[in-house]
């Protein structure tokens, strides 16, 4: 299905999420489902939590215990395939890559969107970080209701 539509199956998505109790701390979700020659996520991680190995075509594997959710990998992935997820009470907090204008602003409410591009919920913008090292890829922290943990992937401005 991914090959036909560009949308991963629910099974593929769930395979990248650690178990819910691990998400008390923020953790990277590596949605890289295809062998392509690429490894900057692995080389950027300051905690060696992302493993690819010598054959850079292999998909990255997350060592959950080593991951601190620092989000350095988020703007490092050329495919924008990495987000950070965390569970806080009844909310799921995400750090996502964002490369459009206008950028969201702290405190705004934007649409929360799923992998098919459908609006599924409101997303509360908690913060937007952009610095030189990120090279024009902003990291946006957004919170959505917990029930959308496995569906939410990005934000879109409300029309």
């Amino acid at each position, binding site marked *: 299905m991914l090959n036909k539509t560009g949308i991963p199956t629910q099974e593929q998505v769930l395979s990248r999420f650690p178990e819910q109790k691990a998400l008390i701390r923020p953790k990277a979700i590596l949605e890289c489902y295809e062998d392509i020659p690429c490894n900057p996520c692995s080389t950027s991680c300051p905690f060696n939590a992302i493993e690819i190995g010598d054959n850079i075509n292999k998909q990255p594997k997350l060592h959950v215990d080593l991951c601190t959710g620092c989000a350095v990998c988020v703007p490092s992935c050329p495919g924008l395939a990495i987000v950070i997820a965390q569970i806080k009470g009844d909310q799921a907090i995400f750090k996502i890559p964002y*490369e*459009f*204008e*206008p*950028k969201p602003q702290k405190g705004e409410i934007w649409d929360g969107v799923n992998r098919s591009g459908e609006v599924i919920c409101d997303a509360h913008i908690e913060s937007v970080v952009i610095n030189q090292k990120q090279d*024009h890829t902003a990291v946006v922290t957004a919170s959505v209701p917990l029930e959308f943990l496995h569906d939410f992937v990005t934000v879109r401005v409300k029309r």
Partner: protein
Amino acid sequence: MKRRQVGSMRVNEHPILKFPEREKIAFIFEGKKVYGYQGDTIASALHALGVKTLSYSIKLHRPRGFYCAIGNCASCNMIVNGKPNVRTCITLLEPDMVVERQMDKGAIK
């Protein structure tokens, strides 16, 4: 504050690229005074002004426009300052250039 741009088809704001303020250049297109920017090619300046047809095919007079952008296809050939067959997609815009559509194979007057 948003700058007022010459040409309705200019990129407004861009998340990655910076399009710095450039000097406005006046030129003549089909007898009318119009404007582009320093750094434009003739074809990109015309495109920004909404001019889509740059030439007509020789036999059937079918409209032709910007296609390859690298001087390969000849769809953008125009008469510039009296000289025909100028590949406007790879020719930089200069002040007071006189640009006209050519309707034939191009003749040096």
